[in-house]
């Protein structure tokens, strides 16, 4: 769906994107994480055709986005601080988008009213709270029925109930229409529940880009205990990323397949051995430990 290749963008000598490449499959929910200034918003503005690349390409469905209305009709962008005309209500903005997005669904607009009960559709959006302004933006975006929804810090300002509601609606569109979602956030925990692919940005480059399943399958967290206090010599060939100890209980972070690792460790005859789930946050810490200080900063 999205293919970014060697994208470079410079602002007054500052390289915001440095030969960045990424790829998001159709129907996926792709999380883009990185610290402030990593280039997330700049990348999103290229994907939505707002910025013109200095070099490199940004393709959606195999076509360039910049100055290409047929492609842009399939994309809707909700920035972190959505813009609306100063005195416009949600209904006014609905009419505006209705004139610009051919696939805009008025029936969906009416139907979604129930999903956003606090948003008064005839009230000027600027008079709504920040959270309700975000709700209004999601309401309008979903009515445009885009093939690609691009979200920059999407649920900031939404209360937990409304977050769940919004994610549920997005997931529904992904499941039913095959919509692709590209989300930028610097909060890994937020993305963990919804993303199936993750890319991490630092200094204008994608440092790592994988599916969550791949990541989770490739790193194992195992707790085990031995009769003696010290950890016995571990079998050769294990790629140990990290070890820690609390009393007789040792925690190992090992890269590799769970069954193979468990098989090898069982030769040490531990008193008990248990595999624990790794959070996305932990995966990134151990995967990228020492790779880049900025990455560590945002995760910790």
């Amino acid at each position, binding site marked *: 769906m999205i293919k970014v290749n060697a994208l470079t963008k410079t*602002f*007054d000598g500052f390289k915001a994107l440095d030969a960045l490449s990424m790829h998001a499959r159709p129907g996926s929910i792709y999380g883009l994480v990185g610290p402030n200034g990593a280039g997330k918003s700049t990348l999103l*503005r290229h994907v*939505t*055709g*707002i*910025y*013109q690349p200095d070099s490199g390409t940004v393709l959606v469905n195999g*076509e*360039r986005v910049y*100055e*290409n*209305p*047929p*492609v*842009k*009709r399939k*994309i*809707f*962008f909700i*920035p972190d*601080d*959505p*813009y*609306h*005309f100063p*005195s416009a209500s949600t209904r006014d903005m609905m009419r*505006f988008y209705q*004139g*610009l*997005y051919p696939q805009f669904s008025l029936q969906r607009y009416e139907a979604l009213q129930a999903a956003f009960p606090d948003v008064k559709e005839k009230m000027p959006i600027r008079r709504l709270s920040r959270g309700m302004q975000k709700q209004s933006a999601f309401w309008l975006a979903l009515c445009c029925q885009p093939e690609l929804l691009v979200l920059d810090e999407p649920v900031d300002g939404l209360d937990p109930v409304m977050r769940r509601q919004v994610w549920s609606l997005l997931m529904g569109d992904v499941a039913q229409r095959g919509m692709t979602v590209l989300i930028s956030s610097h909060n890994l925990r937020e993305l963990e529940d919804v993303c199936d692919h993750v890319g991490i940005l630092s200094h204008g480059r994608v440092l790592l880009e994988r599916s969550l399943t791949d990541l989770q399958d490739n790193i194992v967290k195992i707790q085990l205990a031995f009769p003696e206090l010290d950890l016995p010599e571990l079998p050769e060939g294990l790629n140990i990323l990290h070890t820690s100890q609390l009393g007789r209980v040792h925690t190992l972070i090992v890269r590799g397949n769970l069954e193979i690792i468990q098989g090898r460790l069982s030769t040490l005859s531990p008193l008990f051995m248990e595999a624990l789930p790794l959070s996305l946050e932990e995966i990134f810490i151990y995967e990228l430990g020492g790779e880049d200080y900025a990455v560590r900063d945002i995760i910790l």
Partner: protein
Amino acid sequence: MRSGTSFFDFTIFNKNIQRYWPLWGAYLFIWLLILPINLMFLNRRLWSTQDMLEAAQTVHETLPLGLYMAFVFGLGAAMMVFGYLYNSRAACMTHALPLRRETLFWSSYLAGLAFLIGPHLLTALITLGIESLRGVAAPESLGVWLLGQSAMCLFFYSFAVFCGMFTGNALALPIFYGILNFLVWYLRETIVSYVAQFLHGMGYGTWDRGILVQWCTPILNLSGALQRDRGVTYMNRPEVLAIYAAAGAVLTVLALLVYRRRHMESAGDVVAVRVVRPVFQYGVAISTGLLGTILLYIFWGVSNPSNVSLVVGVILWSVAGYFAATMLLDKTFRVFHKWKGAAGLAVVILLFSLALEFDVLGFERRVPKVEEIQSVPFSSISGLNFDGGGNSLDLDEYSGLSTDSERLEKITALHHALANLPEDQRDRLGDNTISVNLDYSLRSGGSLIRRYYSVPVWKADRDVPGTVTYCVEQLLQDRELLRYNYGLNQQPDAGTMWAALENVVDAKTGSYASTGALDSVTSRRLWEAVQQDFDEGTIGIRYLFSEEASANQYEARIYFYWRDPSEDLPAHKRAAAAADPYYKAHQINLLLTRQASHTLAVLEESGVLDAYRLEEN
């Protein structure tokens, strides 16, 4: 697959019309007040069909007011419809929409133009309706107004749009627009002032006779094009409006080209187009350097600063301007590490000033040879003693006389005298002070223009060949040239000509008075007598020194008026013309002299001097 280009999107157009109705509503309201409502008011107040008719036929005379409205509302419309470029959030939202830049541009541009043209059309329709109801419809005048006002709006609006494409800051747009409307005029004023300090003979219009300034200062040029021409018309140069309207169309296309290359991340920047940033940076620096120095000298009351202090002042102010511009561009006060640019600028100013000081290009010494000269249009000597007909001597090409080689010899001799005037004599007060404009059209197709201001002339030099005084006197002796300067070469229409004396003393009351129109026979005899006296050199003498004028002239002036029978007045002006003898009349006037025996004889014989007395000057 790339999309085909669509140039218009109704949603964007309609949104602009709906959002910014207060702007076009206010514009419409003002025009309704000025035209149809005003016509209704006249009708109610005076109940005169004639007054209504005259008002309807002079609707286009509101164009001078409309010029300033076009200037203001053109800017306002551009600021509104392209306002999304000056706010990062709005710029992102708008450019994420599935529209090409061309579509966004034309939809917004046409909406802004509709803010202006729409009210014009509506006003014209309502005005025509009211005129028709009263039976005084004047579609011609209304059409002139509609076209003229729309042309001006097209230009100023397009110019504002063009300016707006170079900035990403809403506050910067009106400043750019205002500055660029007067930039060439301002640069002319300041640069010429600076250069003239170094180069003797440099003055306004030295480069291009002021044409560039005239056309690049549209509000002044249009104002001139719409001026009242002896009470009849407000549009004496309609082609000027047409040219500006065409320029507006060109600016629109250029604005689109800039918009297509504009980067959206520039929203908020003072200068949004990268290649223009150095122009802005150094332009602000030099403008600040010149203006700051001039204002400082005005503040200190220094009228004639030394060249060294002037250069130092310009360099210091330019450097300050350079850093100020850099702060605006970089949005930070930490710009002093960019001192190399400022130092380079200072060196350039210094070198330029040294080149001027030593006249590297030979500007001061250049005097064309007679055989090089085609004509001397717009050349004149001013500061002579005022004698009713003027205080200058035009050497211009309208007379058709200044192609004569003998006369050109006299002019170039004067030029040599001026060029060779020692530096220590240039700023002194002589027995009189004159100014000389020399404007040569050369046979090579080029031109050479020199302006000499405040040139001292001395009585003692009158018979000293090679001096300025001598050379000016030589030209003042040229009776043929003077005949043209007084207008005595003209052939007034005998049927409409009449004469009058002003500044005569009424013999009964002892107070200054006018004779009023003398009868046609006396007027004709006076004309012939004046011609005879002029031929004998006893009247129509332009003196260089006032004492000589006082010794020979009366205070009384003789006037000749006549109308050009070929000139066709508009119907609604004929009644006014018939009632007012001065209306749109040609005139000649000159001071009476004691030696003008033929003229004085006619006045004596006709009894004028019985009723009036002539006072000595």
